[in-house]
């Protein structure tokens, strides 16, 4: 009996050692500058929570760490899925032998990942009681799912009811059938939000799923002090994952501190209390030598370079823009004088100055609705208007916006012209407002600001109460559709914040959905961008460039355009 117990213990120890590649003595210390909200993949959408979810849960497919541009690769599947010719049916084969992290809910048994777990995880995004912030990516996408959602009303989804579009064919085979062909659906499924969850864990922790993430990813949540500290530990049940001959993850423990102020964040990094950090805006000059002739040409300050600190940079997959409410009687509409007004405002805004002064040169002007690095981007297209306040004034004169006795322009019908711009109250927003004020002053147009918190301004915009507001959109997935939908009329008042409605744009957008990435779709995107340039619902902003630093002892440090974190690939060699 004793011998048998010893044998079992030895085998268990051997198994654990084999599976546990991570060195539990190695600790990676990083920081978030904004507090997270929770770790239920179907309940949160902020970047910081997403960074943790990415490490705890496994989506079906993910991105190659090293390949550029970003390339989708199998994650828990044996290969990329078989996709039907019409892009509607995706069939995934899961790798057998992938297990969830140990949790009391599994009662000491190893719990294998199955196709049903993915079906359940996807259905959760449709559940009316969960209100998934990602539901916009799956609503109406799956055959038969709408019926299930309607049947649920305001109650919980009946997860046992079969749905034709989300089916586990057997233990390891998942079949997703879409209502319409969609060639970028794999990229949606690569998002951490679509990682597999175990139904019994979700049901057991129903009252607090945000604090009890149980997944099959490389790390498990060891400790969570909301808004203060998050500790991850390597998941001993994590499947064997090898990159360049190294079994991953390497680091046994990841400690995330929430540091919202710029000075302590920067000082904590240079004093080696953090291993990896972004560079706060205020420390850019301290950390980098920026070529004044070409601010994108940067290198580390010699004192940091001497210490072996590593610099990595990436262009965000984002666009920033100031939109006009196209339904507004003053700034909206497609009449020539309305377009002239929007164009003149765009021409009076000194974008290169804001990039130099506010972004410290660490941004590139936006010229196309789709940013660089996203499928469909056209680097040759120059959509932004040229900065020319004199020509902008001439344009307003030509379309009847006369300067009145008070020195301010009026509408062509003689009524007063005053435009209200929505804005937040942070220091950086005040800097932006100064440039906008300067632009409006140069046009002799009265500008007022409507101050508010983001949620209040968002509410006001959905109620059609805003005239202008500055927004940014980061890629959910690296496909042009994710950006071009921002001006699709069916999304008006939602993702289409400008409430832009243009029949030809809609027709081209709908046609583009039927095409895969390629020359034919790009032609449609160019035509849609020409409409945007002609109608001017947006004033194009910029795309930011982020710089991150790591100490010399951090190995395999490389940023990825889409992955929030690369912790599983990193090693610490002090």
């Amino acid at each position, binding site marked *: 009996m004793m011998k048998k117990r010893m044998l079992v213990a030895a085998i268990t120890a051997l198994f654990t050692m084999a599976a546990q590649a991570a060195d539990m003595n190695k600790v990676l210390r990083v920081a978030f500058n904004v507090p997270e*909200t929770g770790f239920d993949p179907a309940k949160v959408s902020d970047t910081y929570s997403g960074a943790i979810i990415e490490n705890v849960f496994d989506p079906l497919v993910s991105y190659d760490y090293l390949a550029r541009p970003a390339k989708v690769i199998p994650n828990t599947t044996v290969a990329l899925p078989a996709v039907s010719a019409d892009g509607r049916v995706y069939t995934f084969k899961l790798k057998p032998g992938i297990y969830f992290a140990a949790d009391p809910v599994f009662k000491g048994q190893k719990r294998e990942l199955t196709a049903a777990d993915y079906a359940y995880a996807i259905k959760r995004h449709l559940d009316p009681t969960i209100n998934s912030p990602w539901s916009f990516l799956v609503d109406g996408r799956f055959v038969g799912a709408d019926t299930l959602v309607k049947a649920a009303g305001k109650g919980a989804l009946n997860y046992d009811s079969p749905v034709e579009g989300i089916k586990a064919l057997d233990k390891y085979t998942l079949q997703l059938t879409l209502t319409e062909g969609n060639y970028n659906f794999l990229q949606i499924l690569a998002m951490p939000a679509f990682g597999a969850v175990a139904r019994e864990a979700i049901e057991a922790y129903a009252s607090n799923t945000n604090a009890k993430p149980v997944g099959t990813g490389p790390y498990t949540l060891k400790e969570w002090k909301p808004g203060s500290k998050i500790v991850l530990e390597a998941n001993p049940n994590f499947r064997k994952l090898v990159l360049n001959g190294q079994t991953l993850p390497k680091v046994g423990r990841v400690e995330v501190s929430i540091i919202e102020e710029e000075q302590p964040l920067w000082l904590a990094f240079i004093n080696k*209390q953090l291993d990896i950090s972004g560079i706060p805006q205020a420390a850019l000059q301290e950390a980098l030598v920026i070529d004044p002739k070409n601010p994108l040409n940067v290198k580390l300050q010699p004192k940091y370079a001497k210490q072996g600190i590593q610099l990595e940079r990436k262009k965000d997959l984002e666009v920033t823009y100031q939109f006009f409410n196209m339904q507004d009687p003053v700034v909206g509409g497609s009449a020539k004088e309305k377009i002239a007004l929007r164009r003149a405002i765009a021409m009076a805004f000194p974008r290169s100055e804001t990039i130099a002064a506010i972004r410290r040169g660490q941004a590139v002007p936006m010229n196309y609705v789709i940013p660089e690095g996203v499928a469909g981007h056209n680097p040759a297209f120059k959509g932004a208007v040229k900065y020319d306040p004199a020509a902008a004034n001439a344009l307003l004169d030509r379309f009847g916006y006369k300067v009145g006795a008070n020195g301010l322009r009026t509408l062509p019908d003689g009524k007063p012209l005053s435009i209200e711009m929505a804005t937040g109250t942070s220091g950086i927003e005040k800097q932006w407002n100064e440039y906008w004020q300067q632009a409006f002053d140069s046009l002799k147009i009265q500008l007022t600001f409507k101050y508010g918190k983001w949620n209040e301004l968002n509410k006001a915009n959905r109620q059609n109460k805003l005239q202008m507001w500055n927004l940014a959109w980061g890629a959910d997935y690296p496909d042009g559709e994710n950006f071009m939908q921002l001006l699709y009329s069916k999304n008006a008042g939602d993702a289409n914040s400008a409430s832009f409605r243009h029949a030809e744009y809609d027709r081209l957008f709908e046609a583009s959905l039927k095409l895969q990435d390629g020359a034919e779709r790009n032609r449609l995107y160019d035509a849609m961008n020409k409409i945007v340039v002609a109608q001017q619902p947006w004033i194009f902003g910029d795309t930011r460039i982020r710089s991150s630093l790591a100490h010399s002892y951090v190995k395999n440090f490389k940023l990825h355009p889409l992955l929030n974190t690369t912790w599983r690939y990193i090693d610490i060699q002090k």
Partner: protein
Amino acid sequence: MFAYILRRLWQMVPTLFGVMLLLFVLFNWVGGDPSYILAGKSFSADTLANIRHQLGLDQSLPQQFLIFVRQVLTLDFGISWSTQQPVAEILASRIGPSLTLALPMLLVSLLLSVIIAAIVAYVRGSLTDRIVTLICTLAMSVSALVYIIAGQYWLAHKLGWFPILGWSDSLATNLWYYIPLPLLLGLVVSLAPDIRFYRSCFIEEMGHDYVRTARAKGLSERTIMLKHVMRNALIPVVTSLMMSLPYLFLGALLLERFFGIPGMGNEVLNAVDRSDFPVIKAITIYVALATMLFNLLADIVYKLIDPRVQLK
């Protein structure tokens, strides 16, 4: 005394009701709609309606206020709208770190400022008094943020005497390693105004007739200061102390943010930023209750210090 305490406790009910009403009106007026944060960046009207339903925001305002009343009566504020963590757990985890910093800061500041104030009041008009007063005036004219930024930069980063920031699960580690710098900077910020205030209290007391009488009786200066002046000067000290005690629960916002202390100050800021009404409600109600209770305690302590004080 007992009747007085009972009467004061009874008077707290309408005061608390007023606080609740004011908070409720303010939140609904300028607090922001949390459903627009929870819904994410793109959502349907149905999703928004579901969220509002789950948060109870689709109920009438009187109904929402009644829920608030019930929460105050049971002291159960439910779960955070933002993180979905129980509010009681959030506050319980935050109060410890806040007190770990704020309590020593209050005690050390009180002790030092009373002693220094008594000394400079005693040597009023001397060079020492003038130098201390000048330093206090200069110190008070500098923003707390400047002390924190400069202190962290020079003492922690440049000189390496302290860690930049951090927090541990061990109280001893916190007190020995992480608290000293924020404590020091907190003291620098609070000492100057306290010394000036207490100095003026002492000087006022020292000018009273009973001090002259005591001197005429031949009492030593030490006895006059410690037995007579100090005792009477303690009344404004107690007032000031009791007024600051409720704010211990709110933590030292800037110090907590700059030194990574997971206290209440940060939580308040995040809750306001995220329109997290359950957390805002709980903190406001607890601080209001603490303020009223410490005010009552102050009155009782007055009576203990000076038996001439009548509680009516």
